[in-house]
């Protein structure tokens, strides 16, 4: 194996059927960067889309990249590629997780783990540098993720980082996750993909290192980033409240630079810690900037916060670590840590509302933290809130209506008195039923599309204008993720590309910041061209720069999940620095790639690398759709947009000041421009042969040809 910087240089291959464990030199995958890109190539070559996602030959590919564990700020991510069982087309899909396990995999000496086969009995994968083994997991099969992770650490030693699936994954519940006990999780059905293989979890210890071509440069760039470029979480570049060094703040008082004078971690063991002011150029206060709990819940969060937490290498601590003591009254665990969806949507399953527990206004928070602990323990995913929205849809119905979908016996078996009382045990019981697949209701955790099929709901159910129970932008079974409401046509376009919610934050990082529009517009237009950046709820028709920006977002995100970098923080588009006129540095990620790997990278080159991954995704999606939906016309089958996107806000016309609704004809034009940028056929949205060859993917073009997908393009055009 050649000595290489950044990359560990090899991947692990684990066959659960035979128990065979081997390593492979991975240099041939370096042009796909790592993580997602590497996994897509491996999946294409070795596990064709014809395979059933639960086939013995189906792969689960854990991937990290050259920047993971290399000291680059916000690089503690791991990508996991497998096959969707629940979204339309059952195509290629990723889970993305943070924490400390990705960098540990690198320190153990691996850029990835390709898992194939199905074990006879439950096992977990134990990696200690070069010693890799499958260990009996029968002790923890059936256990929640917290108990399983604790057991694996106790068995193997405190220096092991672990992650485990829960009962949801073991029971092949489509909405399932892999979890660490700090609350880091990879969703998208990863739990079931592993559960099908009888793979309970991972335990990894690495005593090695990531070799870095220019360590001094990595330190310099890190300090440059932390002293000049980085903001709060989502790289928000102004604080949520006025701070004496800052010209601007979020007028709403709400953004993710939410640490501020008087906002405290009140449950710190040694008494309240005030997050105070955090001048943008003070490296030693960066970790106090994000107070995610305060952003999510306001003042009650402070009452229950122990400290901030987050992932390896990241100075922005977007997890809040809580001790929610009122939960003890319900015999529920009180210490939990999370960020994002698990702590945001629990109250959705209480149609009658929630009440305060200990402090004014703390009801939402206490209920959501109980939800978070329960879903993490069960290893249950929420599909970016669709689980909660779909549950609300039925739970808020009168009994006679709800029992059209679930049996009367099941309806009456639900502990409704807990729902009425706002008791956290209500949600815990719902989550248990979902995770064990109990009753008709649990079809909701098999996916929105599975639920619609079982309940006999027409496709138009997804066209309803009801944000509380419908956030699906397209008809493929997953919801809006920072789409048109935050990023106009650009947000709609990048929501079209994946086989799950898009997980793209390139635009919401700007629009959610709270900096003055003109300030951010200048930054965005200087980087991405005139007319690319619309004002909040005052949209303009599509133009070429917007289409280019949408494509940039997709490619950039793909690079992040390959390198790996956190897409909530990267790229460094904005800066809190007045002296920089609030401009970040888009080249920084390429500079880090160069410093870490010793090979020369440019931002333009990384866009090409990201685009190569986009093309692989699109080609494999076309193949899946041909297999499973009978047509590879992605424009029709994959990229069709739900009616509510165009019909909401009936008092407003599209492009009028005050609405985020889009226009149908404009959006079709937007797709044309977007497909043009990517080199996709305008009629079918499939990458042309010329395009695939340009990205050195001629074998995929040959494949599409052989499968008749190009012939289908021609037919569709006629």
């Amino acid at each position, binding site marked *: 194996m050649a000595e290489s910087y950044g990359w560990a240089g090899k991947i692990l291959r684990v066959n659960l059927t035979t128990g065979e464990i081997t390593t492979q030199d991975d240099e041939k995958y370096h042009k796909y960067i790592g993580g997602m890109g590497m996994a897509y190539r491996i999946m294409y070559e070795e596990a064709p889309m014809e395979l059933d996602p639960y086939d013995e030959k189906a792969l689960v590919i854990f991937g990290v990249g050259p920047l993971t*564990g*290399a*000291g680059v700020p916000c690089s503690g991510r791991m990508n996991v590629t497998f096959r969707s069982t629940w979204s339309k087309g059952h195509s290629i899909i990723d889970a993305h997780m943070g924490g*400390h396990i990705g*960098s*540990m995999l690198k*320190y153990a000496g691996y850029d990835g783990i390709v898992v194939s086969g199905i074990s006879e009995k439950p096992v977990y994968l134990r990696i200690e*540098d070069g010693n890799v083994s499958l260990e009996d997991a029968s002790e923890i099969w059936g256990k929640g993720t*917290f108990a399983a*992770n604790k057991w694996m*650490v*106790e068995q193997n030693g*405190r*220096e*092991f*980082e672990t992650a485990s699936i829960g009962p949801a994954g073991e029971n092949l519940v489509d909405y399932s996750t892999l979890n660490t*006990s*700090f609350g880091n999780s990879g969703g998208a059905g990863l739990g079931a993909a592993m559960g099908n293989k009888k793979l309970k979890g991972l335990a990894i210890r*690495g*005593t*090695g*290192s*990531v*070799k*870095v071509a220019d*360590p001094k440069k*990595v*330190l310099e760039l*890190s300090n440059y980033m*932390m002293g000049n470029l980085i903001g709060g979480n989502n790289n928000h570049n102004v604080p949520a409240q006025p701070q004496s060094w800052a010209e601007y703040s979020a007028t709403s008082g709400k953004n993710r630079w939410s640490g501020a004078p008087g906002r405290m*971690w009140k449950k*710190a*063991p*040694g*008494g309240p*810690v005030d997050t105070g002011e955090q001048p943008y150029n003070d*490296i*030693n*206060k*960066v*970790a*106090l900037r994000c107070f995610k709990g305060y952003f999510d819940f306001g003042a009650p969060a402070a009452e229950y916060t*122990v*400290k*901030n*937490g*987050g*992932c*390896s*290498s*990241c*100075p922005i*601590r977007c997890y809040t*670590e809580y*001790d929610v003591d009122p939960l003890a009254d319900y015999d529920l*665990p*009180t*210490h*939990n*840590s999370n960020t994002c969806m698990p702590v945001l949507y629990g109250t959705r399953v209480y149609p009658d509302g929630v009440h305060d527990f200990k402090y004014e206004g703390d009801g939402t928070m206490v209920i959501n933290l109980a939800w978070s602990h329960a879903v993490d323990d069960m290893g249950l995913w929420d599909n970016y809130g669709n689980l909660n929205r779909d549950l609300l849809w039925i739970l808020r119905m009168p009994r006679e209506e709800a029992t059209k979908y679930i049996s009367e016996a099941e309806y009456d078996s639900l502990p409704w008195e807990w729902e009425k009382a706002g008791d956290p045990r209500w949600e815990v019981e719902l989550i248990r039923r979902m995770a064990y697949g109990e009753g008709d209701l649990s079809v909701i955790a098999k996916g929105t599309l599975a639920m619609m099929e079982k309940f006999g709901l027409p496709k138009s159910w997804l066209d309803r204008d009801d944000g509380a129970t419908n956030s699906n932008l397209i008809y493929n079974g997953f919801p809006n993720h920072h789409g048109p409401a935050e990023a106009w046509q650009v947000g709609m376009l990048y929501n079209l590309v994946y086989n799950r919610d898009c997980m793209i934050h390139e635009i919401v990082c700007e629009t959610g910041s709270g900096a003055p529009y003109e300030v951010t517009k200048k930054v965005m237009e200087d980087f991405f061209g005139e007319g690319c950046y619309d004002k909040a709820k005052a949209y303009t028709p599509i133009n070429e720069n917007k289409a280019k920006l949408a494509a940039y977002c997709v490619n950039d995100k793909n690079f992040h999940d390959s390198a790996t970098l956190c897409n909530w923080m990267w790229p460094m588009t904005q800066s809190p620095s007045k002296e920089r006129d609030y401009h970040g540095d888009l080249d920084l990620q390429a500079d880090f790639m160069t410093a870490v790997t010793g090979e020369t990278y440019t931002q333009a080159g990384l866009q090409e690398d990201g685009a190569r991954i986009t093309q692989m995704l699109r080609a494999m999606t076309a193949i899946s759709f041909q297999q499973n939906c009978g047509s590879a016309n992605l424009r029709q089958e994959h990229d069709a947009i739900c009616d509510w996107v165009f019909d909401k806000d009936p008092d407003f016309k599209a492009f009028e000041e005050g609405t985020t609704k889009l226009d149908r004809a404009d959006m079709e034009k937007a797709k044309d421009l977007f497909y043009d940028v990517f080199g996709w056929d305008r009629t079918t949205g499939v990458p042309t042969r010329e395009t695939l060859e340009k990205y050195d993917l001629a074998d995929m073009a040959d494949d599409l040809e052989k499968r008749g997908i190009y012939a289908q393009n021609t037919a569709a055009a006629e």
Partner: protein
Amino acid sequence: MAKTDFLTADMTRRQFMKISGKSLAGLTLSASMLSLFGCSQQQVDSGAVATWALPQGLLVVNADLCTGCQRCEINCTLTNDGVCSSYISRVKIQRRLNLDGAGNGLLSGTDNCFVYFPDTCRQCEDPACGNACPQKAITTDDRGIRVVDTDKCIGCGACHDACPWHMPTVNPETGKSSKCIACGACVAGCPSGALSIVDWDAVTSAAQAAYLDL
């Protein structure tokens, strides 16, 4: 106490040398000293605060501020080893996140526990690591710091075993032991201020001020 005990930076440092590496629990701090250390008396009482007397200043570790990001380990190894690693870092946080061996760490109880903080070499007066080294490879350098002479080190691990906190670590890739050389890289890059170094002039001034108040 007498004002003369803290008259110069050098004298102050020698005073703090007496408790280097130990928690301040059980002691009362003046308001100015608390302000200087960026901590509260309650944090001191709870055992969250420990100090190390280094030549360039007083290293203060505040456990309540540690958010477990591992940037101390990253900065340590990039600076001293030219690679990025956790295991060989001279400041230790990863191995203390899950279980720290002293009843803390995420998995230490039946429910999650969010008490975790970094630990590092105490630069002992009577160093167990150095005494145990069969090669006498751990010596005091011209900066006054105990360092590993990599020419002499045979990577036997005696230093790691002898240290009560197992701070020296044999690098499996080089076969040489690594231990803290008080370079300050971990502190300078700590994004939460859980690690800080207070310069001796400031500690001396605060001590003088405290004297005036008495």
